[in-house]
């Protein structure tokens, strides 16, 4: 049943993706409205799928790659819907939703079997740590999309090419402000994610920090975002530099999320387990 719900979700997200793309190409307002409604419906199905999986498996569905990617996409769509509801950003959907769609597709290629939870992961800290981290990742993914939009728009204005792309993207300052907003939400979440992870590590392995690759790379990611956060507050770094930094930060984040699990081995990767 949860697999079926998942598949329906993927299909609905696909329809919504098409809607957002149609909107950005034709600028038809109704396309965007329909896409948002469809997306909300998809989000409902996705929520049901995650809950069903939790119920069937008896443990939070945050353990293997399929789960993590699916939850990440869920958090992205959720953040996006919240974001669009609070402060509407033109054309954002056409960047974020295809991205979420790719993550869902990647997730659907992973094994969807629910395996019994390894004893070491049986802890209340599993959902706390994983959910916080994945939400931080989702918010940074949003920031990444906004940074890409900023760089695109910045380039148009700098090069004085005021054509189709220029018309479709929001103003620079709006994009920059939204980037900052994502950072002020994402950075505390990331910090909290690392702190909860550390507490859990102490309970499970007996030490707060053991320099396994996941931990190390999380710290590197944290430092990059910390630098960006600091520079913004003190020197007033903004615009292009801030956007580039956001993209670099996200690239490192992706490596921490995927690369470390798939390429490097350590205490965090129970074979192909966690993340």
């Amino acid at each position, binding site marked *: 049943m949860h697999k079926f719900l998942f598949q329906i979700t993927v299909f609905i997200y696909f329809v919504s993706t098409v809607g957002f793309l149609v909107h950005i190409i034709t600028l038809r307002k109704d396309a965007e409205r329909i896409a948002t409604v469809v997306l909300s419906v998809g989000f409902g199905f996705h929520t049901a799928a995650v809950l069903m999986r939790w119920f069937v498996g008896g443990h939070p569905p945050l353990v293997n790659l399929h789960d993590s990617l699916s939850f990440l996409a869920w958090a992205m769509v959720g953040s996006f819907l919240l974001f669009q509801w609070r402060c509407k950003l033109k054309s954002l959907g056409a960047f974020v939703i295809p991205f979420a769609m790719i993550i869902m597709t990647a997730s659907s290629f992973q094994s969807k079997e629910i395996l019994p939870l390894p004893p070491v992961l049986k802890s209340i800290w599993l959902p706390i740590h994983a959910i916080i981290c994945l939400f931080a990742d989702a918010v940074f993914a949003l920031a990444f999309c906004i940074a890409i939009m900023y760089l695109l728009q910045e380039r148009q204005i*700098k090069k*004085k090419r*005021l054509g189709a792309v220029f018309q479709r993207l929001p103003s*620079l300052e*709006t994009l920059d*402000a939204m980037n900052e907003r994502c950072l002020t939400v994402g950075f505390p979440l990331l910090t909290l994610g690392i702190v909860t992870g550390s507490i859990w590590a102490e309970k499970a392995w007996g030490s707060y920090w053991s320099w396994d690759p996941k931990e190390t790379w999380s710290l590197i990611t944290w430092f990059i975002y910390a630098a960006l956060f600091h520079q913004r507050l003190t*020197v007033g770094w*903004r615009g292009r530099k801030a956007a580039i930094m956001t993209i670099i930060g996200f690239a490192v984040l992706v490596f921490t999320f995927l690369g470390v699990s798939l390429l490097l081995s350590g205490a965090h990767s129970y074979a192909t387990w966690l993340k």
Partner: protein
Amino acid sequence: MPLGLNSPQIVLLGVNHNTAPVEVRERLSLSGSNTPALRLFAELPSCEEVVFLSTCNRVEVLVSTNRLDEIRESITKLWLDRGKMDSNTLQGALYEYHGTSAIRHLFRVASSLDSMVVGEPQILGQLKDAYRMASEAKTAGLVLNRLLHKAFSVAKRIRTETRIASHAVSISYAAVELAKKIFGDLTGKNGMLIGAGEMAELAAQHLIAGGADKLVVANRTLSRAVELSRSLGGSAISLEEVGDALVDADIVISSTGAPGIILSKDQVKRIMRPRRHRLLFFIDIAVPRDIDPKVNDIDNVYLYDIDDLKGVIEFNKAEREKEASKADRMVEAEVIKFMAWMESLNVVPVIQHLQEKAEAVRQKEILRSHKVIESLNDEQQKAMDVLTRSIVQKILHDPIVYIKKGAQKKNSEMILDAACSLFGIDGLEDTQKLQDKCLSDANQDKTIRKPSPN
């Protein structure tokens, strides 16, 4: 009985910026005459209804007439007599539209598709004024009232549903539109004018209208700066202070007559740190340029000179043209709808005749039985009257509904013919044919002269 024959025709005669030079347009506006031009046209015997539009780019007379053959002659005669011009000039410049094409032309004018700058908004207001004058003078009736109201709603729809007016086509407005793409909202942004030229002043006014907050004017002669800053509600500084004042400025419009560059890349680079790298937008409309073009290379600084802005405008004009073809399709759909309404006017006389005939039959039959009826008391007589009336009405109800509906369809003529022969409406066939002939002639768009394409 005058049936259908007098079905009104819409005719439009006029000149615009493409067909006639300004001297001709001036004369045709008949502004020198003591009597208002509208009144002169309304007094023509061939004019049923008339609206007279005169703007700096066009002079047009829109009439609803029953005498298609006379209308052109009487209007041109009036123009020639009152405007004191020779016939050849007028005939060369004049365009004339009938029926469908007149409606189409009016809709295009109202929607600013026929304007010199496509999408400019003034024409709709001017047309509304023209219509108001006509309705105050009671020269607009059933047909033109409806036509003009339709034109206004078409124009409004085109304005909201296409992006025909959404691209700036003047330098100062284009500059402000660009500023909005950089800063989003201009509220709380600070403007700066370097040099107090006319164009800079215009752009500054656009900035203030866009919500910009403070305005600083820097000029070589401080008195002029003070004067301008007062009228715009800002403060004045000398040219030497520009470097420091840049720290607080967001949008800088430069238009001095200086022979060389007055703001170098280094000067701008230096102020970026104190301004905490906030975005800075320079608009250099001076020739020769005031600001070093390399300023555009600094991060978070954007510099547009007059040629860049002209490029933007050229692009925007092309965009408007593209939107215009979308608008033309919308106009076409509305023209068809309006023609359907015009044609439905034809059924009115048929229905009238049908009702009159039925009433005549009823009266005749009552008269025939008057002896019986007179023997009844008042109440019974009244009931008799009501009864017969309602029988007639009930019987006619469905056919009338059918005719009304049929008038909107393609085969309306067939339906009208059928109705006439079914109910044996005398003499109608002949008049009907005449009327149909008039109508179909008009529908063939007897455009005598079309304006040359732009």
